[in-house]
């Protein structure tokens, strides 16, 4: 007996509720952008500049006490968050302290870091600092720029690649699906106020890679079926292609999610945000390749018959000399 995620033969009409699914996607995108603009992203020091200090002590984290210890230093905006992780032992109490970039200083002064560490150690002598990271505002500005370029460059590269391998309609559909995935992911990060840093950008690009992978497999089958079933309607062939590849789509998403789930739970807190983004991206990516990319292609329409020259091109003047 084999494990089957979907029955052997499926004949699901993915366009039956096209208005609903497509509308839901558009609504989700609008909401994501609204949350993004309204709540803002919780940028990490990679993009904002500043310093993060990871503290570890055997006594439970007391955010108020930490804050009181640091108040005297007058560091401006300081955020202190406790870090929870199933891999921590009972004696491992971890917190992240983030300090804003200090005005008028490009580089981070070691004195400040030392002052912070001393202030905390006077309260908790046994506290250790497993990591200290500082990024100056100059670099963080450039990092934002590079991140935006990376996302745009990858979308552009995919647009061109799909265009060359398929048709321009396919590449528009694929890139629309990718933008959908990116916006929904950024929206979720804004909603949950998860730290958004360089690793998140890498995760976004991975999502782009995964989602396009999924979309391309369906497109590939669609191209094959368009040749095979010349007389069937486009929507019909799309449904057929999606049904034929559904088992594969879900199998691959399933194995990837399984692997990511292991990493999400057991991989430690340092990369949790990164893994979470990819995990979420695989889910939206799978959804978008089934419900977004094809719909766009259907809306634009695809030139079907390549054996004859373009019907319009051949006929628009043919009735003149009748």
């Amino acid at each position, binding site marked *: 007996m084999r494990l089957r995620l979907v029955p052997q033969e499926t004949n699901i009409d993915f366009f039956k509720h096209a208005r609903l699914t497509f509308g839901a996607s558009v609504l989700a995108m609008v909401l994501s952008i609204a949350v993004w603009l309204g709540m803002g992203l919780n940028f990490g020091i990679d993009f904002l500049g500043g310093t993060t200090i990871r503290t570890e002590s055997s006594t439970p984290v007391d955010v108020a006490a930490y804050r009181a210890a640091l108040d005297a230093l007058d560091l401006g905006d300081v955020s202190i968050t406790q870090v929870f992780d199933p891999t921590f032992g009972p004696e491992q109490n971890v917190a992240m302290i983030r300090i804003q970039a200090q005005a008028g200083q490009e580089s981070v002064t070691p004195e400040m870091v030392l002052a912070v560490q001393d202030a905390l150690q006077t309260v908790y002598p046994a506290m250790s600092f497993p990591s200290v990271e500082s990024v100056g505002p100059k670099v963080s500005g450039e990092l934002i720029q590079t991140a935006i370029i990376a996302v745009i460059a990858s979308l552009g590269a995919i647009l061109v690649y799909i265009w060359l391998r398929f048709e321009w309609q396919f590449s528009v559909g694929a890139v629309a699906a990718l933008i959908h995935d990116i916006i929904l992911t950024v929206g979720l990060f804004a909603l949950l106020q998860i730290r958004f840093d360089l690793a998140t950008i890498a995760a976004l690009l991975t999502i782009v890679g995964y989602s396009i992978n999924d979309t391309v497999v369906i497109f590939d089958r669609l191209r094959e079926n368009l040749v095979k079933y010349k007389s069937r309607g486009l929507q019909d062939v799309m449904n057929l292609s999606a049904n034929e590849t559904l088992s594969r789509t879900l199998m691959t998403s399933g194995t990837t999610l399984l692997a990511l789930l292991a990493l999400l*739970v057991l991989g430690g807190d340092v990369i949790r945000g990164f893994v979470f983004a990819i995990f979420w991206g695989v889910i939206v990516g799978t959804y978008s390749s089934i419900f977004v990319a094809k719909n766009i292609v259907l809306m634009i329409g695809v030139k079907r018959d390549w054996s004859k020259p373009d019907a319009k091109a051949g006929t628009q003047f043919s009735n003149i000399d009748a």
Partner: protein
Amino acid sequence: MLQIPVWNKMVIILLVLAGIAFAMPNLFYERVERHNDAVALIERTGATTDALEAERALWPDLLPGTLVNLGLDLRGGAHLLAEVQVADVYEARMDALWPELRDVLREVRDTVGTIRRQDAPAGELHVRISEPAGIAAAVEAARRLATPVVSLTGVGAPTLEVRGDNDLLIVTLSEAERQATDDRTMQQSVEIVRRRVDEAGTREPTIQRQGADRILIQVPGIGSAQELKDLIGTTARLTFHPVVSRTTDAQAEVDARQILLPSMDEEGAFYVLEQTPVVTGDDLVDSQPAFDQQTGQPAVTFRFNPSGARAFGDYTAANVGAPFAIVLDEEVISAPVIRQAITGGSGQITGNFTVEGSTELAVLLRAGALPAEMVFLEERTIGPELGADSIAAGEIAAVVAFASVLVFMVLSYGLFGFFASVALILNVGLIFGVLSVIGATLTLPGIAGIVLTIGMAVDANVLVFERIREELKTAKGPARAIEQGYARALSAIIDANLTTFIIAVILFTLGSGPVRGFSITLGIGIITSVFTAIYVTRLLIVTWFDRARPKTIEV
């Protein structure tokens, strides 16, 4: 029919075996690392001890000792991004130019009148002359100080830009010279940082020039970024000493106020020198690789500031024919013989140089002290425990991910799923093999990349298996179904993986540090997973099919 040519099989098997052979040392990371360190030390010093041999014996010499480099986030260490204030050098150059300019303007005192240096913006030299009518003559005199810029691209452009503004003479470095200077400053800074860090004897430091004026410094195993900054901050000391004698005896007795120093590149050679240097590197302004105009031999030119020039000129005039030693950090770089008095403040070192040797020496000479201030834009310290925790968490996650994917595949595709699982194990082996051979750095996101690849690597197999299932439905024989399944799934596999590969390339190009580590494992993972899925599983299936000859197959 289902057949794979024999040579094809051999290549597949050989590649897999090679990958696994190179990946295997990573399973014994610590032992192999200690073995490698011992071997490197024995090679470098040429001597060996029992302790070293014991370390060496931890891993057989015959087996490959390739290891994946662990990134800072896994090993712990410090990361610094420094910006070199290249413009500092312009100012120093202008200050050094002033005495020369003063001298040439004095020669034309009749037309320009008295001269006085004015306060000027950084990197400019402003001189006011008392006779505005003589400004043209002053400009012309100053232009004579300019020499053609020496660089790979811009030949011939003058080093200085001189203009007159009423009674004000304004001298700046030309654009071409600024670029050449920046380039030299950067080379010099990188070289100094490298020397400083290497001296501390840490493992595999990364010191890279980034962009126009930045240096990335990553040192694993160091306590904190502050320690690293202290290390870089100490300056190299360059001195010129009179040579008393040359010896091969490391324990030679020396008189008071004399020192015994080893030669840098001649093994076992030592020099007895006067302890008081004639000139120190503080007085050195510049040094360039060049060619001796008479012999055409590679040489190194150097230039002192005025006080250094005077001291050096006096000494060389009095000691023609005697050797003097150029000493860097208590080691004699070279001990050339003074051929003539060197009065102009600049001179040339000839010797048994190759072109590379002269370039290196020029860099070393310039590398005495940091030429410009460094501002640190980014600092990261990661403690070793955090790295160890991350490795442990990553390992557990990878094993769990692995096991669950294997179970899932076998449940879904039975025997074929088992074949895919074997290919998956080989795939991870190949990833580590390739990472080790190319000396890539594994970072925490890199581990995530491998775990993600585990999930995605089955994709190509899934594509093929699903296709075989479909082909079986149309009632062809099993052999034909397998063949068709592979053939028809290929285009989807290629398209799907190429697009992901494009993303990996973009991440690699634009990313840095951990993100780059992720892109490397992702990219390699894509290549190896396509290889294992298309070739290895196919080989397994075809071999099985040949043996078992089943009438029907279930996928």
